[in-house]
């Protein structure tokens, strides 16, 4: 079962390989990683970023797309048109360069090594970034280009790439370090590029009168990875309009106008392009289409635009202001610019040639064709929620898009300082010497050239601030923190694919469905339950992502040789389309299409004829009303693909999600159907994500349990990394006694997960023993606990920043606070218990709530001596505020980058030991979680004949309803493995009905002298009597989850209250209470526990004594009386009702008269009682009184 160990370093067996790991760990390999599979999992993130700045990469192409910006001089609002043409200032970007992270030039101390390492950034809580330089050129009119090089101080982040200094030996990279926090641009599922999708959406009808729900959309992606969505709408009368968005505004243009503007054409060509060549097969049946095309052509006549030039001019004139095209451009050129930027830019986004425009023309015709087919019912709609029609927006691509857009915006923003300069200098022409003098220092300096700041904002918040929206459906949530709670969680971040925040609010659940199309690309198991369920997916562990386009220059010729021609016929039965990356290569018969598909596949696997292996050849066969047929090939980046075995050649083939639904891929070798199957899976587990693969025997479990394990694996207290000493995460968890699981798949070794143990092997007995194991509680052997079972630690980092909150202007030397005891001031002995001479905490010191963590004093700068002097001799402190005892692990003194300022910031790493306590959560690897309910004394635990006592007892009732048979099998395998010293292979789908897992491991147990089924007779630890039933006992890998009672318990008797209502406040941190809500109240009522109810809702809440007048039933009219003779003293707590009282006339007896606070004298109103009421009742009374509503209470008796 286990693959045999080979000599190469990167081959991993299923064995424990302890010695090999130890060797690797002590001498990290110099040449390459020992875990290439692990590195490959992160590759898309790194590579997609690397392609941004490489030669001919995203930025280079983006610069070309941005082109030259032209600005005109003179007052654009001046009415006087002197006829003379205005001068043109042209600005363009020539190149962008990203430097390595380095110290600023102001630092005079570092001489030899000026580079900054990522580990340093992490520890200093700063951003790992390098300088981004832009080379820019400008000229006036048609003068020479003047270079203005290396002058932009833009800063930019680069992902951490394999820095060995103070890093993990298997550091993966692929993330950004922003303010010391590791951030990651999450991969996003977006519509497949360059494929016209048939969509039927009710919302399309809202575009205007006549609009129907039918449409064709294409997400056209430029070479620089930015995209522009074009949509065709079908109108009731058969007309077709083109819709696009530009800078978040929507525009609709008759598609005929665009067609006519693209190429010099005529109605016949358009007609034949849409319907099919005249005289071709099936033309007669195409009455539906011919009618509509006729109408299309006829209605367009109203515009009276007949030539390409005129159409372009018309479009140009309309869109010139929208596209920010300079005023002096001709309308026709503006029209060409419109076509370049907006219409199917994937077929030509810069330096557009005639043939490219013809490609666009043909593609538009094809789209109209497909639209009519859709309306006619000839083809089905494409499902935008299926992976077939999706690709992945990679982090690097998004980053590059933002960068490009920001550069574009920056160039555009020159216009404002230019105008400002013109206004101040009486509109001097650009040709003047003053302009030459001022342009760089005055005008360009005024622009906001800090693109890095914008990117930093993006990376730290994940919010996209963009004028165009980048053709995306969301503006926030692009970036997530790569949390290092344990390694499973960390690695999962890189395999995570989100469907988009937009879909999260959608009421319908269709987008969340697991569709068969995602087989092999998205893991069916690894998705969280709850609100992100189905939206946040993880890629199958063998699924790769293309980060670069492959060379497909040979394809058009090959296809032509295989019988593709430019002529199409009316019927799909006679001709179907052949496309490459959204370019129509031609048409051929359906039979020929299949031949083309098969031949190209053979060649691509064979590696001949210049067909790249990564090419996706999507052959869609003809069907009755199914997906629109044709051969669609895709070669560009952002595609998913996965390895399968191509049977005719027995070699590796890559399969994409577009082609997969129409292929016959056998799941296992025996399932190959001769004459049908073309491929076979390398392994059925290839469809699972890394984490899902780690669940042992997951094929024995009920599927939701495997989902739960994928969640809990990521929450377990494990080993976040090995270089913990060089990390300063806000909070990290660490399991002190981690072990390698006895039962694990070979992939566990391949992914190097033994470097990051995530749990402990425990002897688990399934028995209902003490009564403390009800409802998923588990019992822990007290001795096991004392020997270190599940012992964990939390590391917290507290930053003590003297300048926090005070914004010091850069460069000024006004440091006002310094660390340390105030010189000359009193230093108490108790302070010195926790703090060292320098005022910083002692390493290893135990600190409790309220203890001091660092000392500081105020200073002022004395220019005479050049030193900081303390005036008051007062020492102040940073305090530890949390209620848990911690130890000081590390103290980091953080200086400034230029090295010339005194230290004003330290970061203290604290260690909180967390040994398991009752109420802590544990789980096996089968979604079987439970809280520890007792630490049971070892002598009372049940034991086997050999004296083995379980570490953990779980209740048998945890199994029947959950059906986690995998856990039983793991227990069996673990027991056999522990007895024989074996690492057990737990890969799912390895056993079948004839060759069962139970049999395999049962025989191993028998060999060791144990019962075949894993049961053992056990004795009660308390009486010593043999238990009547034999007990299922074995070894199961247990995870300790990070949810611990110490972080959760909430108790209160009295405590802080809300000042308005008098009720307890909420929140555990603030010492508040837990709400007894309506439902809890109902339950208490139903139980008849009135006393408890009153205690909760009244006495422990807002119990108040209030005076109320029995006569008029009011709280508000009562007033305390004031003794006539003893001013300032209350009248003996006597309360009277002012409302029922009469003003005293002076005739009454002294004993009847009372006086209120204002000195008014009354008689009567003495029927006042003091009652206990909830405080809010009085408050309600006041609120209602303010609205003129009087509450009247009846007081009895």
């Amino acid at each position, binding site marked *: 079962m286990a693959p045999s160990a080979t000599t190469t370093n990167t081959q991993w067996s299923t064995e424990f390989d302890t010695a090999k790991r130890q060797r690797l760990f002590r001498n990290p390999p110099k040449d390459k990683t020992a875990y290439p599979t692990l590195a490959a999992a992160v590759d898309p993130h790194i590579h997609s970023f690397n392609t941004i700045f490489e030669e001919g990469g995203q930025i280079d192409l983006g610069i070309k797309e941005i082109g030259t910006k032209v600005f005109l001089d003179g007052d654009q609002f001046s009415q006087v048109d002197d006829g003379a043409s205005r001068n043109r200032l042209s600005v363009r970007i020539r190149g962008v360069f990203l430097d390595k992270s380095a110290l600023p030039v102001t630092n005079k101390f570092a001489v030899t090594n000026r580079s900054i390492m990522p580990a340093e950034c992490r520890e200093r809580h700063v951003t790992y970034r390098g300088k981004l330089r832009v080379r820019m050129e400008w000229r006036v009119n048609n003068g020479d280009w003047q270079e203005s090089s290396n002058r932009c101080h833009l800063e930019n982040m680069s992902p951490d790439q394999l820095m060995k200094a103070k890093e993990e030996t298997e550091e993966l990279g692929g993330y950004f370090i922003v303010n010391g926090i590791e951030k990651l641009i999450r991969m996003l599922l977006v519509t497949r590029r360059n494929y016209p999708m048939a969509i039927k959406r009710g919302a399309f009808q809202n575009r205007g009168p006549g609009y129907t729900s039918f449409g064709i959309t294409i997400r056209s992606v430029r070479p620089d990875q930015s995209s522009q969505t074009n949509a065709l709408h079908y109108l009731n009368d058969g007309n077709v309009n083109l819709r696009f968005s530009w800078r978040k505004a929507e525009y609709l243009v008759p598609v005929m106008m665009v067609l006519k503007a693209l190429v010099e054409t005529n109605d016949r060509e358009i007609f034949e392009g849409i319907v099919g060549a005249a005289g071709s097969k099936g033309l007669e049946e195409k009455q539906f289409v011919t009618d509509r095309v006729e109408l299309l052509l006829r209605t367009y006549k109203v515009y009276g635009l007949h030539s390409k030039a005129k159409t372009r001019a018309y479009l140009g004139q309309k869109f010139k202001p929208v596209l920010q095209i300079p005023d002096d451009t001709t309308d026709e050129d503006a029209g060409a610019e419109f076509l370049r930027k907006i219409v199917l830019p994937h077929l030509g986004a810069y330096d557009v040639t005639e043939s490219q425009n013809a490609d666009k023309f043909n593609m538009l015709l094809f789209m109209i064709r497909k639209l009519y087919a859709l309306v006619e019912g000839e083809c089905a709609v494409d499902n935008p929620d299926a992976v077939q029609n999706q690709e992945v927006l990679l982090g690097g691509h998004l980053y590059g898009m933002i960068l490009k857009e920001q550069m574009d915006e920056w160039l555009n923003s020159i216009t404002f300082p230019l105008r400002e300069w013109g206004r101040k200098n009486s509109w001097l022409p650009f040709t003047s010497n003053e302009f030459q003098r001022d342009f760089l220092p005055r005008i360009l300096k005024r622009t906001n050239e800090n693109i890095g700041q914008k990117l930093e904002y993006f990376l730290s918040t994940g919010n996209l601030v963009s004028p165009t929206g980048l053709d995306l459906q969301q503006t926030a949530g692009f970036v997530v923190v790569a949390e290092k709670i344990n390694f499973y969680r960390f690695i999962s971040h890189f395999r995570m694919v989100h469907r988009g925040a937009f879909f999260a609010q959608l009421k319908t659940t269709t987008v969340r469905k697991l569709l068969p199309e995602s087989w092999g690309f998205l893991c069916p198991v690894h998705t969280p339950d709850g609100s992100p369920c189905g939206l946040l997916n993880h890629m199958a562990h063998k699924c790769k992502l293309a980060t670069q386009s492959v060379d497909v220059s040979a394809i058009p010729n090959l296809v032509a040789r295989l019988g593709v021609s430019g002529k199409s016929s009316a019927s799909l039965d006679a001709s179907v389309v052949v496309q490459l990356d959204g370019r129509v290569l031609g048409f051929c018969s359906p039979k020929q299409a299949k031949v083309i598909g098969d031949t190209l596949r053979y060649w691509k696997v064979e590696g001949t004829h210049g067909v790249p292996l990564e090419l996706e050849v999507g052959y869609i066969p003809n069907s009755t009303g199914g997906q629109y047929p044709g051969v669609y090939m895709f070669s560009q980046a952002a595609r998913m693909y996965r390895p399968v075995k191509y049977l005719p050649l027995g070699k590796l083939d890559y399969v994409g999600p577009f082609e997969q639904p129409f292929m016959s891929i056998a799941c296992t070798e025996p399932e190959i159907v001769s004459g049908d199957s073309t491929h076979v899976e390398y392994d059925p587990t290839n469809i699972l994500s890394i984490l899902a693969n780690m669940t042992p025997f997951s094929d024995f479990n009920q599927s939701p349990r495997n989902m739960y394990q994928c969640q809990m694996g990521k929450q377990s207290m494990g080993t976040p990394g090995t270089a913990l000493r060089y990390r300063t995460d806000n909070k990290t968890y660490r399991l002190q006694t981690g072990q390698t699981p006895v039962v694990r798949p070979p992939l566990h070794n391949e992914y190097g997960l033994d470097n990051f143990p995530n749990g402990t092997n425990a002897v688990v007995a399934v028995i209902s023993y003490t009564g403390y194991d009800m409802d998923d509680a588990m019992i822990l052997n007290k001795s096991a606990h004392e*020997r270190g079972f599940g012992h964990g630690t939390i590391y917290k980092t507290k930053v003590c920043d003297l300048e926090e909150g005070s914004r010091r202007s850069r460069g000024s030397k006004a440091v006002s606070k310094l660390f340390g005891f105030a010189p000359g001031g009193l230093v108490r002995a108790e302070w010195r218990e926790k703090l060292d001479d320098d005022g910083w905490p002692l390493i290893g010191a135990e600190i409790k709530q309220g203890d001091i963590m660092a000392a500081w004093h105020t200073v002022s700068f004395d220019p005479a001596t050049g030193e900081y002097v303390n005036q008051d001799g007062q020492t102040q402190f940073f305090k530890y505020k949390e209620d848990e005892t911690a130890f000081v692990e590390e103290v980091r003194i953080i200086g400034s980058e230029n090295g010339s300022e005194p230290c004003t910031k330290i970061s203290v790493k604290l260690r909180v030991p967390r040994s398991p*306590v009752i109420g802590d959560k544990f789980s096996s690897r089968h979604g079987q979680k439970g809280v520890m309910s007792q630490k049971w004394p070892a002598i009372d635990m049940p034991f086997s004949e050999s004296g083995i006592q379980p570490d953990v007892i779980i209740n048998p009732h945890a199994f029947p309803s959950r059906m986690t048979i995998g856990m039983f099998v793991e227990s069996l395998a673990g027991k056999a493995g522990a007895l024989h010293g074996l690492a057990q292979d737990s890969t799912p789908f390895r056993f079948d009905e004839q060759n069962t897992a139970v049999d395999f491991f049962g025989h191993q147990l028998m060999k060791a002298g144990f019962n075949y089924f894993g049961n053992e007779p056990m004795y009660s630890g308390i*009486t010593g009597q043999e238990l009547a039933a034999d007990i299922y006992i074995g070894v199961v890998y247990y995870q300790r989850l990070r949810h611990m009672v110490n972080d959760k318990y909430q108790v209160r008797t009295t405590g*802080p209250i809300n000042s308005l209502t008098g009720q307890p406040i909420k929140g555990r941190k603030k010492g508040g209470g837990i709400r007894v809500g309506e439902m809890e109240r109902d339950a208490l009522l139903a139980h008849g526990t009135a006393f408890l109810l009153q205690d909760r809702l009244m006495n422990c809440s807002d119990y108040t004594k209030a005076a109320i007048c029995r006569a008029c039933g009011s709280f508000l009219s009562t007033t305390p009386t004031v003794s006539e003779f003893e001013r300032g003293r209350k009248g003996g707590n006597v309360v009277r009702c002012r409302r029922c009282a009469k003003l005293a006339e002076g005739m009454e007896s002294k004993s009847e008269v009372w006086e209120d606070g204002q000195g008014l004298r009354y008689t009567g109103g003495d029927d006042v009682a003091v009652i206990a009421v909830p405080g809010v009742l009085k408050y309600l009374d006041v609120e209602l009184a303010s609205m003129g509503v009087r509450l009247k209470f009846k007081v009895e008796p």
Partner: protein
Amino acid sequence: MDPYDVEGGAINVRFLQADSTRANFLIQNFDLATANALRRVMLAEIPTLAIDVVEVFDNTSVLADEFICHRLGLIPLNAKNVDEALLYSRDCECDGYCENCSVTLTLNARCTSDGVMKVYARDLVVSGGRPNDEIGTPVIKDPEGLGSVIVKLNKGQSVHMKCIAKKGIAKEHAKWAPSAAIGFEYDPNNKLRHLDYWYEEDPKKEWPVDETNANIDGVPQEGEAFDYDAAPTRFFFDVETVGGMEPDTIVQQGIRVLQQKLANVIQELQGGEDIDMGGFGGQSPQMNGGGYGDPTAGSFSAYGGNASVWGGGATPYGATPYGQQPPSNW
């Protein structure tokens, strides 16, 4: 009754196998409750010696103080004659620890060479003044004579600790356990039918039988009638030492402790003076009160600033009719 008359019902112990680490024996004519009591006592109530308090002078290793301390605690120490030689620290008159109630070990290691240095149990140095010259020595069983690894040091790192080994029992902490697991079995042939074997087809085929024990106990005859009144009388013990005590000492000590406990019960019943059997009172200090937090830390005095019309910034809980007024009629 003749104490050696096995047939006559005298308690009898028969050793099946015994060496320096294991004692495999059976007790005949014994009863279940006492046998189990002996097992429990041997597991948890025999006093042994283990490091309980560590004074850390220097620790620049990668492991945290409390983690090394935990490891030190689990190192088995020779506990020869500990029962008489040492007092329980809590019974001792000294303040903290002294020679009468503890053995002091010192760990002082520094790595000065390149590469990783391992600190082993043999590096624990026992200070003089111990009651006998074996007690407190770390148990080392491996052929190289190194003992268990405590910590690994890199160049420049060092540990310097004073370890106070005290007498204690496993009931308090597992580190004082003289044996890790004690095999215990009776009725290997299930003649008493205490156990209802689960089986698929045939329990005889599916259940493994410990042949030796089964033969000693007597294989039941075919068709032998089931004696439902029978009680187990023959008990198989398998005591394996952790190393601090000889296995036979463990058994002897177990019996002694059991006798003491019984004597204590008798004395209590007769109203005699209280003998502190120990083991119930003390407990090692735990971080954060064993996880429940410091009980005094929960006071809410810090919230006094939230005063309002409702008075005092806290619910007037104390002023309820239930709190202040004495219960009137019940």
